[in-house]
């Protein structure tokens, strides 16, 4: 008797699973809505008849934003919302190119130290007030004011006096920015910072509306209080439920913005988000479940977007402690023993690119240095690894015992297990895997008292190799390897002050070569972004910085039954 309910429960289970599995072989109408063919008018705008009636974009957006104050914010999900809400002096095109934003054009002095921005006289805040140079002056002073506690205040470090203001030696008013007129904003820099225009797309450099801050204090980012200068303004925010933005009618390019409303949903779980997409609740997911690659490829290929991202997944060594202190040969041996191809093809599986470099490709002004061993076959690398391992004083009878530390996550665990297995197989290294909760991990890494080898990773903050190279300056707060090389520090300082692009580029290549030759890091692969995008959402383009502004996007109509039939008929006649 007791068997029956168990059997029934199994039947329900099977029915539920079967419903999705059976789709693979039985033809069914496509689960994804099919869009109509897009047609454009003479100005390159989509024709009204192809547009969906309701221009509301539903977007999954990772974690709940910590704050919508652009100066205090950090993290990708928050930046996604802020890029729709606000606009910096420059902004990005759909393909990621830097284009004029709040400033329609600018002059750069011959020495590269003075930037003069001419603001769009039509620039308006979401309450209709003009956006002025004074807004930028006040906002930037707020960013560098140590009282503000801006998480990314360092973005403005190239500006004259910024460093002294951070450390409290000078008042914020001394920052090297001036409003020459209501629409002319001038910035003076300490060094010619070739990537400066790129920094201006970062939320930390966005203007905030001073009267709203002064009136509402810490409540200035609540719906109804928040005044912004971007294509959208905030109309609703329910914590951990949704953030709703609506089109800002005062935006200088409002005529070209088609989406009327954007709803950002936070998700704590990638499977939940995936289910919501499958149920048709979302146009755009923040990520996809990593275990579902084959299913997605087979069933949702036209929605699956995998694109290169400006980030590198790597491991690093604590250079201040045994066994890696002063032991270059050992570090090199561990680096060469890893078969990156296996990790990207068998473990991560989303088309990640294996690498021996720290700086990702795709930068317009940088050709990464390629280490010699990148060209070798894996057998050659392993051969060399064994030689170096012996040279470092280890052997089969006297194997290295090492701790490999990572923060708790399924993916990190799998990759670490694979690396430990490769070290074991090629060299006979005994690896103890240690996983730690994120904040414990960060603290241990920074203190360098217990760490040996550890996981790391970095997503560039701005489009320049320097965002990776500066990490290993002896004084950098995230130099968890404890790399302390005066030659490297000097090289970084020369890069910062170098005015001629070609020479600066060569210096950066030298710096990366130095880092890799000293084997400070053990690069594994370049990150990819992976997400699902409804085929009806148009205007989305992949770009390496992964900036996607809603103002360039629009939703097209679903193809009607007749149109689908027609298309099929025309396909058949062809």
């Amino acid at each position, binding site marked *: *008797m*007791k068997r*029956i*309910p*168990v059997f029934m*429960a199994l039947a*329900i*289970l099977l*029915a*539920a*699973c079967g*419903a*999705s599995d059976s789709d693979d072989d039985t033809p069914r109408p496509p689960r994804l809505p099919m869009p109509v063919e897009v047609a454009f008018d003479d100005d390159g705008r989509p024709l009204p008849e192809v547009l969906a009636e309701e221009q509301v974009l539903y977007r999954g957006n990772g974690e*709940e934003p*910590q*704050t*919508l*104050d652009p100066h*205090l914010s*950090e993290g990708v999900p928050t930046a996604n919302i802020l890029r729709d809400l606000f606009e910096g002096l420059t902004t990005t095109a759909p393909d990621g190119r830097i284009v004029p934003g709040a400033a329609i054009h600018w002059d750069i002095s011959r020495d590269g130290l003075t930037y003069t921005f001419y603001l769009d006289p039509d620039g308006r805040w979401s309450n209709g007030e003009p956006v002025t140079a004074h807004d930028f002056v006040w906002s930037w002073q707020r960013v560098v004011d*140590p*009282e503000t*506690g801006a*998480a*990314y*205040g*360092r973005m403005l470090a190239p500006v004259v006096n910024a460093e002294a203001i*951070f*450390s*409290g030696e000078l008042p914020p008013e001394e920052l090297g920015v001036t409003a020459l007129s209501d629409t002319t904003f001038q910035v003076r820099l300490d060094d010619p910072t070739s990537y400066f225009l790129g920094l201006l797309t970062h939320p930390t450099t966005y203007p905030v509306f001073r009267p709203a801050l002064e009136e509402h204090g*810490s*409540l200035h*980012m*609540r719906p109804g209080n928040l005044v912004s200068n971007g294509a959208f303004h905030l109309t609703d925010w*329910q*914590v*951990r*439920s949704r953030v709703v933005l609506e089109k800002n009618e005062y935006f200088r390019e409002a005529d070209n913005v088609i989406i009327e409303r954007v709803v950002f*949903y*936070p*998700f*704590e*779980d990638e*499977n*939940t988000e995936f*289910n*919501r997409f*499958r*149920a048709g*609740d979302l146009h755009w997911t923040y990520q996809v479940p990593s275990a579902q690659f084959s299913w997605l490829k087979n069933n949702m290929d036209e929605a699956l977007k995998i694109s290169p991202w400006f980030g590198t997944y790597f491991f690093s060594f604590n250079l201040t402690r045994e066994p890696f202190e002063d032991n270059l040969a050992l570090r090199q041996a561990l680096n060469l023993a890893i078969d990156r191809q296996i990790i990207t093809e068998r473990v991560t599986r989303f088309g990640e690119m294996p690498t021996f470099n720290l700086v990702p490709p795709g930068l317009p002004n940088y050709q990464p240095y390629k280490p010699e061993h990148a060209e070798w076959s894996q057998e050659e690398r392993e051969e060399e690894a064994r030689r170096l391992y012996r040279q470092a004083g280890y052997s089969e009878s006297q194997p290295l015992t090492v701790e490999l530390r990572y923060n708790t996550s399924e993916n990190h665990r799998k990759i670490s297990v694979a690396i430990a297995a490769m070290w074991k197989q090629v060299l006979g290294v005994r690896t103890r895997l240690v996983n730690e*909760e*994120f*904040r*414990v991990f*960060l*603290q*241990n890494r*920074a203190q360098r008292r217990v760490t040996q080898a550890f996981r790391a990773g970095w997503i560039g903050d701005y489009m320049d190799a320097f965002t990776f190279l500066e990490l290993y300056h002896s004084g950098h*707060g*995230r130099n968890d390897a404890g790399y302390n090389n005066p030659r490297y520090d000097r090289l970084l300082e020369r890069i910062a002050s170098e005015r001629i692009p070609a020479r600066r580029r060569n210096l950066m290549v030298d710096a990366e070569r130095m880092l890799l030759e000293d084997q400070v890091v053990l690069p594994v692969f370049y990150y990819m972004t992976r997400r699902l995008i409804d085929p009806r959402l148009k205007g989305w383009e992949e770009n390496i910085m992964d900036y996607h502004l809603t103002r360039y996007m629009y939703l097209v109509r679903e193809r009607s039954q007749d149109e689908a039939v027609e298309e099929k008929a025309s396909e058949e006649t062809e």
Partner: protein
Amino acid sequence: MLRYSLRRLASAIPTLFLLITVAFFLIRIAPGGPFDSERALPPEIEANLAAKYHLDEPLVFQYARYLWQIARLDLGPSFHYLDWTVNDLILQGAPISFTLGILALVIALVLGVAIGAWAALRQNRPADYTVMSFAMIGISIPNFVMAPLLILLFAITLGWLPAGGWEYSPSRMALPVVTLALPMIAYIARITRGSMIEVLHSSYIRTVRAKGMPEKEVILRHALKPALLPVISYLGPAAAAILTGSVVVERIFTIPGIGTYFVQGALNRDYTLVMGVVILYGIIIILFNFLVDLLYAWLDPRIRYDDGEAEA
């Protein structure tokens, strides 16, 4: 009765105080702080943030400051959700968790008791075995399995209900409430069945039956009430747990309740948020245990709290 209630409520204050003290120091032992992140902050800014939130003071001072703050019913600013205070977060999330919890509780109580009593009256017959096997399955299928199965079936395959998200609407609440209620129905049914069987075998039931009372009245008037006692003692902590929200259900259905705040708050080192949830949880537990004791007295005439002397 009134004096007893007042005394119970007064004794809640030292309990809460102890809870707050232990929780306050425990969370501070965890390594790392609320402002640590992959991007290292410049030391000056870190110092400023610490000063702004008084994290640079000795822990005992912070503790005194915190006690003074909660005495004024202010749970302080959240260290992670910078635009909100802990009061804001709890006031937004608690009604949602309460709504789901109460609905699940009511459903579970009605169905659980009915099924349990029904099975008890058919003890060791096929109907009893069938129902109780289902109950066993209900208890042993964890909600992180049940919830995705329900979504797969009702939201994705059949398309009858939304896959998640929150609104005060029956369709949005249906799946989370069912997920929460199912294991409780099963528990309550098993408890009711067990105690009902015990009561039905007791001598006073034999007496009323011997006196010729109709079976329906025997069950409803004399057997059911005492059979509910174990259910009530189960309900105290269970109700407190369900009202403060379920991490799993909130994650899977993306419900902005308060269940996730405890774990998320601890991971983010959001000290004030964790404390706020601990205090809320403490209050609810104390309150429900108190209610359970009152219900006991009402259900079982042998229990009286006269002048504070409880005789069982």
